[in-house]
């Protein structure tokens, strides 16, 4: 079985969010970059677990990004995976990114494609769905567990007010979230091994971009907290009812 894990580079969860260039660009000064947590903790780790169970599994990691994405893909290789592919292109439009991944998938013929449920920077939650549509394969979003027996994948996905369990026998695109696997820390052996694992750089295929970011904004700061005494909860109820009109 051949698995593709799609990896994105995102700012660390504690990074200061600021913008430059007339609020047109994300300010990268001093920002630590990480593997998008959903891609790393759930998608990648689950793929590694499948390989640990069945050593014949081959895992490819793929990122669409410029050369500055390489430390991230090396870090992913340190956790596991056999080889990595970087499509040398900017990743600001979801459709463009999905089309790049689809072009690679059409050549490599994966049995299973994992993505994270969304990236923590643009929160698009779109690349997996677009990729599945381009490849014309089933798409299982917001997945909380994945297993495979023979050719049959068994998948649990979140729906409103619960979850559903599904089975499918074909190639499938799965967007992973909490529950699929548990976060791992790379060990020294993995870090050493990652140095010699192949990292292929591909030039992008021709694809359209459908959107562009015009500008960013930061939310207006809060006016400041109104403190109410712990002995006077009635006052809080009154404020919530009359002032905030929240209850």
């Amino acid at each position, binding site marked *: 079985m051949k698995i593709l894990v799609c990896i994105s580079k995102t700012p660390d969860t504690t990074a200061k969010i600021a913008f430059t260039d007339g609020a047109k660009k994300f300010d990268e000064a001093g920002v630590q970059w990480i593997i998008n947590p959903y891609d790393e903790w759930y998608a990648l780790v689950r793929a590694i677990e499948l390989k640990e169970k069945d050593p014949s599994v081959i895992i490819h990691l793929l990122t669409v990004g410029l050369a500055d994405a390489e430390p991230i893909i090396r870090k992913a290789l340190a956790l596991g995976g056999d080889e990595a592919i970087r499509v040398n292109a900017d990743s600001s439009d979801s459709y463009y990114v999905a089309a790049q991944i689809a072009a690679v998938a059409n050549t490599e013929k994966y049995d299973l494609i994992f993505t994270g449920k969304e990236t923590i920077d643009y929160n698009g939650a779109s690349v997996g*769905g677009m990729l599945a549509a381009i490849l014309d394969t089933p798409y299982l979003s917001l997945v909380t567990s994945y297993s495979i027996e023979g050719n049959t994948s068994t998948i649990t996905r979140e729906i409103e007010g619960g979850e559903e369990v*599904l089975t499918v026998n074909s190639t499938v695109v799965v967007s992973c979230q909490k529950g699929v696997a548990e976060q791992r820390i790379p060990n020294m052996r993995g870090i050493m091994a990652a140095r010699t694992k192949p990292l292929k750089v591909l030039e992008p295929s021709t694809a359209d971009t459908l959107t562009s970011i*015009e500008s960013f904004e930061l*939310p207006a700061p*809060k006016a400041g907290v109104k403190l109410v005494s712990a002995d006077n*909860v009635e006052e809080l109820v009154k404020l919530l009812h009359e002032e905030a009109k929240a*209850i």
Partner: protein
Amino acid sequence: MVLVYIDHQDNQIKKSTLEAISYGAAVAAQLGTEVHGLLLGTVTEDISTLGQYNLKNIYQISDASLSNFDAQVFVKTIAAAATKVGATTLVFSHNQTGKALSAGVSALLKAGLVTGAIALPNTSAGFVVKKSVFSGKAFANVSITTAVKIIAISPNSYKVVGGAATTATTTPLEITVTPGQVKITALNKTSGEISLTEADIVVSGGRGLKGPENWGILLDLAKELGAATACSRPVGDAHWRPHHEHVGQTGVQVAPNLYIAIGISGAIQHLAGVNRSKTIVVINKDPEAPFFKAADYGIVGDAFEVVPKLTEAIKKMKASA
């Protein structure tokens, strides 16, 4: 034409769909065009009443293959229907279903998509939609550069506007539906629970509650308020509460009218998931808890004393109202 995807579950139209219809109607008014709905499958509810949200007509595709949700099948069907009826703008709710569908439809139609939209498009120059980014820490204004546009509106971001004295017509639509490959084998519903992303009020607990056995006071408050319950990441990780209740940057992002945080210190990752809430109340015994900086109202005090008193006070207020 603006076409709104009518999402339904258990024979009922979802609240997030009413928001999407209201949003679609406003977009249509802005563009000087009509708003129609697209319903896949059947519901028992009388859909003509959706006219009160200014929906003019509903295209319905009632093929037997659409009785179970399958993203691949639904995406192809929606894309074919949108082309057939000549939709220029498609609107989805960015709920669980919208997340499964809007992206695929965007790819098939090569129509630019903005997910997690929080406001009406700015059409003064082009078509620019504001969306939440960096998990709620910022907003981006995204321009859609294609002829057909798709917007997935974030739940709880656009008010339901009803009350129009009109009814919606229904037009059956013939689309060839290809059956899918996914089989549903089980459905586990957490019955009676209020959906976290749709809830008007969310009551959330953190490590300050010390253990799962202490959640009773929080559940009582939530019940009194008709609120959904949530928790911080450490609480989810420790399995004090189910994973799906985890709110924050790597969990669920919510934007209710009222968010009440009990015993949560307010780490930046948690704030990212809740800071679009309209009103935030923080109850914490540590006056230095960073959450107070992001709150509208706060009580410095012991949750075990404050929360039951708060529940009582709300009960009293309701009784006197």
